[in-house]
């Protein structure tokens, strides 16, 4: 038994292990693109380990993948390693901790992240001194029901919401959604443009902690959805000035057979946050027009989540949305673990967005 570095040529074998363990995997071209089109990996090339594998008799029996991300705060850049595709065959389970250790103790990365951890993975990450982010309400997915009949039927079949009285009211009665503001306009796009880079500069002035929103990173992150044209990008203008954009991924929820629109990116400059009311209204209409069953969102800061809930989004607790970070940069400690209301991370800040 040996532990070795993963190579891009290991796709086929990793795909077979995933299938045996009922895990999805991207097609080979999209999978290779995770690294071959990654803006950091392209620059650094061989310096980055794409993952570690357990091999025995020349066969792979376990794997953990390692994806580079760049986060920004106050003009500084931080290199993050995001854990993905962590799977180990039963016979080799005792080495699962070794893989996790290699990921969490790799040199060079400022942050070691998993944002799609189940409860078991969460406990193991914590044993290795990773910590859960302090973000307000991160574990509650927000859902807006478009197809009430289908969701009601699914609820009976166990699609469970946190059904308190407030949520029941939102489910059965129409919520008053704000009408359009004359100065606010939207444009619907299916690709990113250079104007993302201008918006990113404004975010830096706002002293926010965020994963890079520049054109190269957005094109990489949403690569598979861009190729399939499964992406809506809603640009937001106030008095004809670009003040933000929202990204929605079109996907299919297999367990409950729901056609779903997932809001994965909300970039709006702080002083224009009130516009989120209107843009969510626009997204709801977009979902209705295209016959989606639900719209959902994971994460986002309190200020945004409050607007979601006012519009009629319902909370649903999820055991698989634990966001844990091992932080190697002292100056980020407060931002990540003591800043519940301002932290604004979402699925898009880890491998969660690759797996929708």
């Amino acid at each position, binding site marked *: *038994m040996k532990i070795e570095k993963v190579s891009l040529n290991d796709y086929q074998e990793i795909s077979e292990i995933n299938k045996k363990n009922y895990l999805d995997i991207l097609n080979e071209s999209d999978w290779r693109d995770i690294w071959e089109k990654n803006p950091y990996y392209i620059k650094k090339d061989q310096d980055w380990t794409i993952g570690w594998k357990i091999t025995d008799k020349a066969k792979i029996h376990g794997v953990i993948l390692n994806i580079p991300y760049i986060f920004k705060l106050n003009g500084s850049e931080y290199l993050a390693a995001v854990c993905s595709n962590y799977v180990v065959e039963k016979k*080799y*389970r*005792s*080495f*699962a*901790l*070794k893989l*996790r*250790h290699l990921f*969490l*103790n790799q040199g060079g990365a400022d942050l070691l992240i998993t944002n799609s951890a189940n409860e*078991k993975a969460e*406990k*193991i990450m*914590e*044993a*290795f*001194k990773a910590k859960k982010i302090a973000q307000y309400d991160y574990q509650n997915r927000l859902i807006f029901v478009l197809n009430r009949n289908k969701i009601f039927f699914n609820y009976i079949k166990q699609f469970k919401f946190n059904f308190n009285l407030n949520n029941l009211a939102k489910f059965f009665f129409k919520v008053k959604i704000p009408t359009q503001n004359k100065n606010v306009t939207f444009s619907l796009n299916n690709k990113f443009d250079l104007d993302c880079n201008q918006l990113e500069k404004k975010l830096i002035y706002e002293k926010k902690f965020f994963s890079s929103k520049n054109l190269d990173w957005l094109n990489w992150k949403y690569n598979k959805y861009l190729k399939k044209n499964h992406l809506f990008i809603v640009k937001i203008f106030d008095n004809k000035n670009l003040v933000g954009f929202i990204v929605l991924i079109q996907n299919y929820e297999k367990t409950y057979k729901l056609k779903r629109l997932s809001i994965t990116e909300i970039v709006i400059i702080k002083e224009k946050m009130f516009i989120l009311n209107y843009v969510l209204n626009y997204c709801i209409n977009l979902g209705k027009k295209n016959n989606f069953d639900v719209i959902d969102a994971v994460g986002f800061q309190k200020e945004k989540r409050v607007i979601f809930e006012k519009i009629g989004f319902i909370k649903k607790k999820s055991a698989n949305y634990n966001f844990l970070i091992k932080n190697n940069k002292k100056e980020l400690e407060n931002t990540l673990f003591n800043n519940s209301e301002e932290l604004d991370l979402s699925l898009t800040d880890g491998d969660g967005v690759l797996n929708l």
Partner: protein
Amino acid sequence: MIISKIIDNTIEEFNNNQNEHKINNEKKFLIFGEDSSLDSLACANFLTDLEKNVLKNFNIDIDIMNAIFTENKDKIYLQDLKIILENQLKK
């Protein structure tokens, strides 16, 4: 309290707090490695309990998980754990 007593107490607590896994308090009990009866979560839970008990008794915050896996060994027995722990406390 001496280290072996802390290990004994942690084993007892671990065995009493769940029914799925049992740690036999023997030098050759395999904590980590092929054929260990502990799965990854059980191993992590036991070592985390051990860290907490060390902190409680010695007021020293150790990182036993990372210390064990930095050893680069395929197998860690209970007797190895005691040595690793002693080395951690000497630091």
